Each structure stands twice: as C-alpha cells, then as structure tokens.
C-alpha cells in the first residue's frame, strides 16, 4: 500500500487507456502524455501497461508501506525522497516508511509516478484509468484525496538494494520545455469550410491555453475562426487531438477524456506524435500549430513508436544488469 499524505492538485490513476467501448460512448482516456507514462513504467521494471499516478501542476506526497522501485517522468516537478532531492527520469528503490514528495511543476504540466507492480486498483471495463466524468476506474472514479491508500501490485520479485546509478538521457524529455509549444496538425475534415483568413490564422497565430482546460479538452484563445457558411453539422467521431471550433470561433482541442462524438466543425487533428507536447502545456502557454499532411503524421508517429521501443529496450538491458 501507499498512503496519500497530500493529494496534489489533480492526481488520478491512469494506464494505457480503456479500449473497445467507444460504441458505448466511453473514450479511451488513459495517460495524457503516453511518452512519459511508458518510460516511467519501463524505468521501474514494469511490463508496460501498469497503472501509474498522473499528477497535474502540484504533485502528491506519498508514504510507502512496501518496498518498491519508483520513477517520476514528465514535467519538471521538484521531488524529494525523505527530504533529499530525487531525480526525475530514473529509477529509485524505496523502503517502507519512505516519503516521496512531488512538488509544484516548474516547466511542463503533468508527471507520471510509476511504482513497480503498478497501482493495483480493480480494473473497470478493462482498464484502471480514472474517467472522472462517469466516475469510473481509478480510485472510486475520482482524483486522489488526502488519506487514501493505494494498493500496489506484485512486483517483479527481486529485491533491489540501494540506488540505481542510471537514468534516461535528457533527449527523452526535450519535448517538455518552452512557453510556446509547436504542435504539428493535419487539416481536419471540415478545414476547407473555414474562410481563407481563418485557415491562415489558425496556422500563423499562437493560441493561448486558457484556464478552462482539463483532461477532457483545452479551450484556446486567439484569433476568431469562422466558417464560410454556417451549417448544421451531423455528429461524427472525434478523438484525442481533434481541434473543433464551436460558434464562438475559439478552438477547443479535445484531450484524452473527450467525448467520443462531436458536432462542431473540425479544423485540424493534432498529429499523434505531438500529443505528449500538448499534454505538457499549461494554462498560459501558447500553442503554435504547424501544418503537415496525413502521410507525414503517420510516418512521424511510427518513427516515434520505434524510438520509444528503443528507449524501453535500453532500459530493459539496464535492468538485466541490476539483477
């Protein structure tokens, strides 16, 4: 078990997502920044799809009642273990009684706290991810609260003593920083219905992430976008990264917990390769959309998956050396 001493701003249990229920109106959800999530899991020696904690802006304080390996990946959150600085993007052994404090994020917005064995809440509809709008998954379908106790899964069994003297190179986290985030996006199904000026603006201007932004969607603020001709849209599928434009003309980027269908014109689709960048944007940051084609987006996504697989393979080799 892990005791939650402080919950942080908005900390939820997340895994790789809840698949197979879009026909029932349930989105895939899961970790917003899949890159940091996967690496955090790999760093603690997990198989890959175990549940972790997703911290937002201000992290939790946790006391371990078990021996485990812990890693924190994602935004630059100052962390301490029993008061001593704890480096991100590297595995660390903890013992019963140890206290991990994840502070207030300096750059980026979200961190993934992985524990060997995973956070072992009961899966709901095939996933441990918390989906707050329907109060399902995670810990009673809600963010953590002070006083919660989190069950931890069975670990890989081998005792890890002391500190591991390795971690991920800074290349793994280069996407995190910067107040203006450049995010590549493919013109969406209704792109051609926007006025030429709106189409130009969308890719030329910067859009600010407003405070009305969460796991469901980010409301952006910037030049108003307009259709050539208003028309009644028939609701169709939308996914993580869909940029839709309601009547206000201010775009909304749908995030991991967005609804499965939408009825607003879609000006763009953020390339999957850049969703981790978006997940690390905080209110007040700016998004600069950069146009790319669907083939390029696909190629970049595959290339990123291969890169991730190489990082994970390298981590596994390190682990073999530890045991």
């Amino acid at each position: 078990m892990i005791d939650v001493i402080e919950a942080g701003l908005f900390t939820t249990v997340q895994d790789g997502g809840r698949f197979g229920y879009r026909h029932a109106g349930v989105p895939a959800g899961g970790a917003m920044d899949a890159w940091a999530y996967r690496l955090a899991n790999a760093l603690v020696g997990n198989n890959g799809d175990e549940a972790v904690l997703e911290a937002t802006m201000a992290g939790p304080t946790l006391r371990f009642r078990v021996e485990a390996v812990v890693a924190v990946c994602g935004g630059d959150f100052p962390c301490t273990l029993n008061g001593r600085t704890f480096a991100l993007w590297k595995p660390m052994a903890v013992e019963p009684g140890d206290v991990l404090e994840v502070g207030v994020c300096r750059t980026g917005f979200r961190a993934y706290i992985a524990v060997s064995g995973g956070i072992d809440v009961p899966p709901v509809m095939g996933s441990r991810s918390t989906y707050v709008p329907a109060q399902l998954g995670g810990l009673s379908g809600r963010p953590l609260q002070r006083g919660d106790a989190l069950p931890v899964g069975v670990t890989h069994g081998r005792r890890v003593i002391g500190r591991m003297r390795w971690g991920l190179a800074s290349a793994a986290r280069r996407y995190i920083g910067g107040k203006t985030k450049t995010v590549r996006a493919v013109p969406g199904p209704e792109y051609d219905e926007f006025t030429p000026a709106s189409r130009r603006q969308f890719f030329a201007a910067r859009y600010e992430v407003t405070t009305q932004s969460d796991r469901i969607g980010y409301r952006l603020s910037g030049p108003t976008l307009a259709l050539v001709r208003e028309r009644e849209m028939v609701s169709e599928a939308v996914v993580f990264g869909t940029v839709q434009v309601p009547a206000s003309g201010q775009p909304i980027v749908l995030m991991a917990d967005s609804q499965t269908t939408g009825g607003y014109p879609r000006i763009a689709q953020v390339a999957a390769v850049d969703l981790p960048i978006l997940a690390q944007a905080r209110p007040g940051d700016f998004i600069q959309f950069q146009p790319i084609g669907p083939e390029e987006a696909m190629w970049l996504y595959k290339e990123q998956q291969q890169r991730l697989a190489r990082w994970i393979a390298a981590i596994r080799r390190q682990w073999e050396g530890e045991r």
Partner: protein
Amino acid sequence: MTVEYTLFPLCEYAVTVRFSDRIDEDVNDIVHQTAARLQAERKEGIEEIVPAFSSLTIYYDPLMIDYIGIGAWLRKNIRRSEQAVRRSARTVVIPVCYGGEFGPDLPDVARFHGMTEDEVVALHSAGRYRVYMIGFSPGFAYLGGLSPRLATPRRSVPRTKVPAGSVGIAGGQTGVYPLATPGGWQLIGRTPLKLFDPHREKPSLLAAGDIVAFQPIGADEFARWSEEHD
C-alpha cells in the same frame, strides 16, 4: 439504391466512412448494416467499429495495418448496391415514471403545447424511437422519432444537476440522461433503469440501431424497480 460514401482519415489510427451529411433513417440503416458486415469480416488489427448518424468510424492499429490496407478492406466490404433493409431491430422498453418530482418540467411542457399532462405522456409513450447512435457521454442514446407536437425549447437556465435516468425533451429530440450531469433539457420523467453501468457485461443498456419504447409506470412501481435492481 446506390450507396455513395467518402473515406477520410480521422487520425493516425482511425478512418471515417461517411455516407451522407444529413440525418436520415435510410442512411442510418445503411450505417448499421455496414457496421454489422464489417464486424463479421473483421480482421487482425481492426480494433473498434463505431456507428454514428450517417457515418461510421473504424479504429485500427497502425502498426499492423496501414491506411491503404484499411481502405482496400473497406471498399471490399461496403457494397455499392446496398438496400436499406428495415432490420428486425431489438426493441428495448424503458419504464418511465412521468411527472411529479421525477418530471418537474412536465407541467411547463404541457402548457407550452396547450395539452394536458396526460396527453403529453400518452403522446411521448406512444412513440417508437430509433437509437441513431451512442455518443456525447457514456450510454447516451441519440433518439429519433419524437412527435413534432412535443418539440419544446430547452430551459433558459440549465440545471446544475440532472439526476441519472431523467427523461427529457430538447428541441425536436428526446433522450435519457445516463449519468447525473448538468443539463438544460425539459425533464418530463425518470426511469429506474441504469442506462450505463460499468459493471455490466454490456455497460450501455442501449446500442445503436435499437428501437426504444417508453412505458409509463407509477411512483410505487418506480420504487420497486429501483430496489430490485440496485
């Protein structure tokens, strides 16, 4: 009828097949027929087939199949000479306790149309409603078939909390709230059934393509249902 459709990539792992850009029962029949055929012909790497009003979206693993492969598979399985067949759709009867504390807007809806409350209930429960699609929120069914005589504008001030199971009218639409959420629909009743239950094998009570009938029940029956099914 010759079926025309367009294919476009929604993102790296999903493609949408669009048959029309309006809401139409025949088009929706073709959506469901096509979804059923694709489901039967499913191959490795195809993850989800999700019908909407006049389109369907196929989610797949891009590391197993590419967009060209998906396109070829779709073109092979979508027949140009599709007939909109009225299938023997499943009918789901939803018991509803109309009016009173469960349907606080029933008096307003009746007044708006110059009807009695009983007339509104009779008209609403006589209808047969098609589930065009599930979306918006878990288990939420977009229903077609509301009598134009019951079309009522939304409330000017939405409620901050509408209880799960509430049956409402918004413009020309009727529907049931699966979850307790804020909402602006005119509430005319409530069902004791759970439209969405994550612990059921099929979490959503309704599926796209179903036919819904509302069955009026009394407050005592509502209480009995709630007890039996909780």
